[in-house]
């Protein structure tokens, strides 16, 4: 207890203000998302009662057994003209929950109100979706608190960089959708340069280390993109199952390449900044260090990071396909077909990213040495 009081006494007015504002934002936003029904146009209902009505076993073509439940739900409408009225809903869900879910008292649901029943006291309707905004806000706060608590100022910068980059991405996509005459690759290249400059300056500040890393990142990303382009062109895209790409409304190849481009960027930046900080670190410790020694140490560091970095990308990409792979396999699809249908694009992405990571090691090394040489020459 004493230590807490001690800490509180040591805090400056500025820090107090900052923490206070954070706490106010936290409470206000949580209250808001829990009571923001009137901001929605779609009718929302809060479940007041839920009863299990019926249970039945099913077996499908592939001998998979599952249990299907039927729920009778009574919910209170929270917005719109029918606010305060009760609505009766039925929900069918399975034990596996691939596309359905069990609801319980207190859940908020988006509902469709059957217009024939509006005049009656008892409304009926169907369930459209779950109101999920409060959970996103809650996790976002846990994320913000963890980053600020562990990372302090650097944590704050990571949050800012995440938000700024997300806004740039959204804006770039808007431009792409509105203008058909600017090529997608051009828009992506511009955004990649913006992403790199902003993220690295935020993470590392204005100094030569950062400049070297920015150049290395841009050169590394573009060379890996070039290699992927050439490979896809030379093999005419053999083995890539574009047809399994989800959510397509636009030319699929462009979107896939943009995904490769932006997806590997974070990892390439990480490698570039690791290379430049460690090489500048060695130089600062000993200003007379030879270029040969720098190259040797730089390569050692590069070897240490390339394995783990490629694995980060691999898991980030491939894990998302797990539910789909399970669905395919449980529906009697052969293993080879399942894998090539679901993983060919993810694998291509991970491999292209890996190429970017490995290429950035020598590129980062030589850009840093270039900057060091320039520094020496100026003296």
């Amino acid at each position, binding site marked *: 207890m004493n230590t807490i009081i001690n800490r509180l006494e040591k805090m400056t007015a500025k820090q107090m203000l900052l923490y206070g504002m954070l706490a106010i934002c936290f409470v206000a936003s949580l209250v808001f998302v829990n009571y923001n029904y009137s901001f*929605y146009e*779609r009718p929302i209902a809060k479940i007041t009662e839920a009863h299990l009505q019926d249970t039945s076993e099913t077996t499908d073509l*592939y001998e998979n057994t*599952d249990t*299907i439940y039927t729920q009778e739900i009574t919910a209170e409408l929270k917005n719109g003209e029918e606010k305060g009225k009760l609505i009766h809903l039925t929900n069918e869900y399975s*034990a*596996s929950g691939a596309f359905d879910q069990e609801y319980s008292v207190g859940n908020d649901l988006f509902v469709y109100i059957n217009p024939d029943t509006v005049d009656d006291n008892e409304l009926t309707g169907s369930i459209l*979706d779950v109101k*999920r*905004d409060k959970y*996103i806000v809650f*996790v*976002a706060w*846990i*994320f913000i608190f963890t*980053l600020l608590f*562990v*990372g302090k100022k650097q944590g704050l910068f*990571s949050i800012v*960089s*995440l938000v700024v980059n*997300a806004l740039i*991405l959204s804006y770039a*996509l808007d431009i792409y959708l509105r203008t058909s005459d600017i090529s997608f690759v051009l828009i992506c290249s511009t955004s990649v340069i913006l992403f790199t400059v902003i993220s690295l300056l935020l993470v590392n500040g204005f100094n030569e280390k950062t400049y070297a890393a920015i150049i290395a990142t841009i050169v590394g990303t573009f060379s890996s993109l070039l290699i992927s382009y050439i*490979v896809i062109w030379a*093999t005419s*895209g053999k*083995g890539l199952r574009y047809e399994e790409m*989800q959510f397509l409304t636009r030319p699929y190849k462009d979107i896939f390449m943009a*995904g*490769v*481009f932006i997806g590997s*960027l*974070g*990892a390439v*930046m*990480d490698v570039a*900044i690791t290379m430049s900080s460690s090489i500048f670190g060695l130089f600062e410790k000993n200003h007379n260090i030879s270029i040969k020694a720098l190259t040797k140490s730089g390569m050692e560091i*590069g*070897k240490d990071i390339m*394995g*783990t970095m*490629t*694995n980060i990308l691999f*898991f*980030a990409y491939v*894990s*998302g396909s797990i*539910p789909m792979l*399970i669905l395919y*396999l*449980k*529906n009697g699809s052969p293993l080879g077909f399942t894998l090539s249908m679901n993983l*060919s694009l993810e694998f*291509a*992405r991970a*491999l292209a990213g*890996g*190429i970017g990571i*490995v290429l950035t090691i020598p590129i980062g090394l030589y850009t840093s040495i270039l900057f060091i040489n320039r520094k020496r020459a100026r003296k």
Partner: protein
Amino acid sequence: MSVLVCLGAILLILMVVIGGKKGARSFLAIFFNFGVLLFIILLMTNPAFHPITLTLIACVIISCINLFYINEVNTKTKTAFLSSIITTVILLFFILLLTEKAKIHGFGEEETEELGIFSLYIGVDFVKIGASVIIMSAIGAITDTAMAISSPMRELFYHHPLINRKELFAFGIRIGKDILGTSANTLFFAFFGGYIALLIWFKDLSYSLDEIVNSKIFSSEMITIFCSGIGVTLVIPITSWITAYSLVRGREKKEA
């Protein structure tokens, strides 16, 4: 030759040229990891096995590959391993609670069109599989961060053998802060790259903001980003504490 074989060959050549033996090991590690992932997925199709237990087993094996196979078995990798597993377990409980509440498991409305031919009543627990997906997305980044902290802490201890536990811990946190930004960025951009198609879809079909935020797909993507961010951050103090504790205890044992 297919695109994958070609890209794989280029990656292998680059890794061996730049990384030598270690590069070749790093390349093989990707395939071992894929093997583990595939094996776990095959086991998950059997409802008799608990998906969370399988996920934990997968995380242990994957951490072993990433830490002990690519590097070596030594104090650095051992503490990094322990810290990764502890972080994973903590994160797993948090995610499990969340996926169940927010109902983000399984497939979204936008995906059902192409799922028409499949039977969806397949008897495996998609809530737990959803949690496992989030954990597995972050496991690579968690082991990487753990290693990036324990390794310089070991170096510092080697150069200053008399340093006390508190100072070591503070050093670990300081390193962690420096790499926090970049490891978080690595994950953010990897996810952004994957979500471009989804974002264009939302914009093209002019979804309203409230439809986007509350849709299952978008919320599960956001929750994945945030949870993996929490994971790479959480591993920093955990690794610093465990490494500081084990290094100092090792010294005390020697003295006694």
